């Protein structure tokens, strides 16, 4: 798997014909099984970047290629996990997880087996017949992860997936994600505005500038997972990143 972004830019044109540049000249090559966090101040276009990679939006210029093929629409090699409200409330957990297979016409029995496997992987065995509203926020995001894994993508695109969770659940989910990553060997692109989260999870952190988002710096985080959040090295990297984010943040906000 090779994902290549070359000079990706995105310009929005508003109704009164004003142009607004959201992303400018983003180039990045993602290695196999790498965990990349995209970090930046709010409004820097990090979600837009992820959506372009996912094929939900298109770049104004530049190219994105996955294994040499240009991405112009969603590819089965990539699965996206949204911040929240992404589960279908009328479907059971199992029916949510296997939607991708259902769309491809996989038989029911096979789908059930797969649901069991992926729910087990995210630590939700036995919850298949429940409905989303019966689950906590953290459990719902586990279901979303299982649903993404069930289409067997090589890349997971995650858009602030733990942003709506409380701090403790968020920590737990970060550990869980590392465990799942280790087990499934996926490549992960993870958008966040939390420096802490990025340093804890990533192999490399892509720091974006304020709008229009450009790559300010790519920070490689040394050391194996899981990392010690209270360690000295962790603290230094955090300080460096916080410094950068502060420079980029709108002083009014």
């Amino acid at each position, binding site marked *: 798997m090779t994902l290549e972004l070359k000079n990706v830019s995105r310009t929005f044109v508003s109704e009164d014909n004003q142009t607004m540049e959201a992303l400018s000249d983003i180039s990045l090559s993602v290695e196999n099984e790498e965990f990349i966090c995209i970090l930046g101040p709010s409004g820097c276009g990090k979600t837009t970047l992820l959506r372009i990679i996912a094929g939900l939006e298109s770049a104004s210029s530049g190219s994105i290629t996955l294994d040499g093929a240009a991405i112009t629409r969603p590819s089965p090699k990539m699965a996206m996990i949204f911040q929240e409200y992404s589960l*279908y409330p009328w479907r059971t957990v199992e029916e949510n997880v296997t939607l991708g297979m259902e*769309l491809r016409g996989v038989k029911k029995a096979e789908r059930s087996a797969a649901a069991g496997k992926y729910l087990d992987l995210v630590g939700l065995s036995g919850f298949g017949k429940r409905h989303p509203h019966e689950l906590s926020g953290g459990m719902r995001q586990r279901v979303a992860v299982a649903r993404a894994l069930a289409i067997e993508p090589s890349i997971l695109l995650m858009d602030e997936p733990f942003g709506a969770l409380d701090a403790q659940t968020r920590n737990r989910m970060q550990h869980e994600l590392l465990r799942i990553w280790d087990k499934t060997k996926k490549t992960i692109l993870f958008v966040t505005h939390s420096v802490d989260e990025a340093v804890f999870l990533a192999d490399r952190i892509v720091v974006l500038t304020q709008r229009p988002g450009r790559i300010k710096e790519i920070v490689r985080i040394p050391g194996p997972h899981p990392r010690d959040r209270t360690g000295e090295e962790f603290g230094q990297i955090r300080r460096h990143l916080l410094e950068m984010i502060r420079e980029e943040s709108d002083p009014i906000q």
Partner: protein
Amino acid sequence: MPILLIIGWEVAAIIVNNPFFLPKLETVIPVLLSPFSDILGTGSLVENALVSIERVVLGFALAAAVAIPLGIGMGRFAVLNDFFDTTIELIRPVPPLAWVPLALAWFKIGIVSIVFIIFIGAVFPILLNTVDGVRGVKNTWVEVSTTLGASERQILTKVILPGAAPTIWTGLRVGFGISWMCVVAAEILPGPTSGLGYLIMYAYNLGQINVIIAGIIVIGLIGLVVDQGFRAVEKRWFGWRGLER
């Protein structure tokens, strides 16, 4: 509450003591208890009720068949919405019964004009609720399906329709209520020779107030039973509404 109403009615009927104004309970109940026997030569309660129900079902089904697909289109595509919206808002405030003369001119006296009136009454609540329901489908739900590889058709059947279904159902429920009112009103007007509305109007002409009240009770009961049916389905299938997170 219904029991209080019945007691109050009986007491009032005894005080008034005029069967042509307010008949006593014991003159109404026999009519209700023999639903299969002929009333005043117009057929039985059940026969007339079935005629009314048949008309409602026809008009209502027609309204749903037009309103749901149109509503989905309007909810999904701004172009369609812009095209139809003004026209709909112009026609919608006109009471269904105002169409009666036109219906008679177009379709003559008979089932077609009654079905037309019912159609007019039911089509707008179903349409507006469908549009609302489709617009209320969360964009994330559509995008999740897109990233999982859904085709346009699959997005419609797996996301838009189930996501909008509770609101569409509310539209059907409201629409049916209005259909039922329309059929009775349309049958009271000159022309029809059967149906519950015709029966109570005919009873009025013969001064049979007890039959009128029996007819009104049957009309109310049928409306109630159907509405309970709608609610039961709502509870069973659409209980997730308001719980989405």
